[in-house]
């Protein structure tokens, strides 16, 4: 009995980690809307943001269902504060320049795609169905971000320098994605979510391959930030939420 309750709590936590990461990255990417360097990239960024927000509705919708306290995806997105968010630290990093945004996207996509492939094998069919759906979209995200990281890394002196600076800044935020805690371990053992350790080989191979092609150098320092998955965030997330949550908090009964 106790074990069943614990597993549901772990699943709620795991679903929030997925949904909060897609939500926060989706919102960050949407901040580019109308401001990207070229029109085509503006549209591409908006489309990627849209996919991520759509996936958020599915993950957080299921999280609310699993929790059983009548919270919807909207309630979870708009009525929780920073410490309740479970997103990866990488995705709350500010956009910086266009290259910085793309590097963040690539480092996330390279994890997101194999993560969804693992989730598609989940014993929980609800999780598997969402992962299969999202996986098809994320395959396109990964192709685009990898392609652009290569073009800009192996581009002009200016674009190369900017991509290297982005990589140097963002690299210490990547470790968290592949280090399981007790929640991740419980979900992996139950066959609901993949073993995060197992994603590292795929992620390493892909990232090394793309960055080498992009003529970029992976930083030597092994230091990695962590805490996002447990609700310990950088100062950036609160500022983002203040903007993102303003309307539903100021006008709680507003309808579309």
């Amino acid at each position, binding site marked *: 009995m106790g074990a069943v309750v614990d597993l549901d709590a772990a699943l709620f936590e795991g679903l929030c980690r997925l949904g909060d990461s897609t939500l926060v990255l989706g919102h960050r990417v949407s901040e580019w809307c109308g401001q990207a360097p070229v029109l085509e990239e503006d549209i591409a960024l908006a489309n990627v943001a849209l996919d991520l927000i759509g996936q958020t509705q599915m993950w957080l919708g299921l999280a609310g269902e699993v929790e059983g306290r009548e919270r919807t995806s909207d309630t979870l997105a708009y009525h929780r504060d920073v410490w309740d968010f479970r997103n990866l630290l990488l995705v709350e990093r500010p956009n910086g320049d266009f290259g910085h945004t793309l590097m963040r996207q690539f480092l996330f996509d390279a994890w997101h795609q194999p993560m969804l492939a693992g989730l598609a094998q989940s014993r929980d*069919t609800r999780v598997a169905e969402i992962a299969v759906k999202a*996986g098809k979209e994320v395959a396109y995200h990964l192709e685009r971000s990898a392609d652009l990281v290569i073009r800009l890394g192996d581009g002009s002196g200016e674009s190369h320098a900017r991509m290297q600076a982005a990589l140097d800044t963002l690299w210490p935020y990547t470790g968290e994605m592949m280090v399981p805690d007790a929640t991740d371990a419980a979900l992996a053992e139950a066959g609901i979510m993949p073993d995060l350790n197992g994603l590292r080989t795929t992620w390493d191979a892909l990232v090394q391959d793309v960055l080498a092609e992009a003529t970029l150098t992976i930083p030597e320092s092994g230091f990695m930030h962590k805490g996002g998955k447990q609700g310990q965030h950088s100062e950036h997330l609160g500022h983002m939420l203040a903007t993102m949550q303003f309307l539903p908090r100021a006008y709680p009964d507003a309808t579309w």
Partner: protein
Amino acid sequence: MVNTAQIWEWLAEVPDPEIPVISVTELGIVRDVALEGDAVVVTVTPTYSGCPATAAINFEIERALREKGVANVRMQQRLSPPWTTDWLTDAARDKLRAYGIAPPVDGTGATGVVAGRVKRLTGAALIVACPRCGSEHTQKVSQHGSTPCKAAYQCRDCLEPFDYFKCI
């Protein structure tokens, strides 16, 4: 009493809100029509998870059925199996082309297997014929176009930009 075959016929007249030359049934997103008591239950699958047209599509379907006199309509969402462009009918592909949108080239969707094929990423392995002049001398401008389901292309012969309905 209305039967499901009749409802399918009515649904075949409901246009997609963003690509009005094809219907919601030609797009392949209506997965099931069932009668439950006096209710008509229509099951729809989303194209892309965040596609804003999904809500509009549900609204249009409900409205069309009410206009035909069905008082009790219930909309249901189904995620699995996920929508694929393979479900676009041949007739729909011709209509897309005539409308100026290149139809999907089946079997060319992104697979996510990028490692090992990195060098080919920037290459143009996929040939998309221009829907206006038929030339295969075209180039991808951006992987994303005016809606989530499309990519932006340009014809290098007639120089016209066009949308490509990408394979998923």
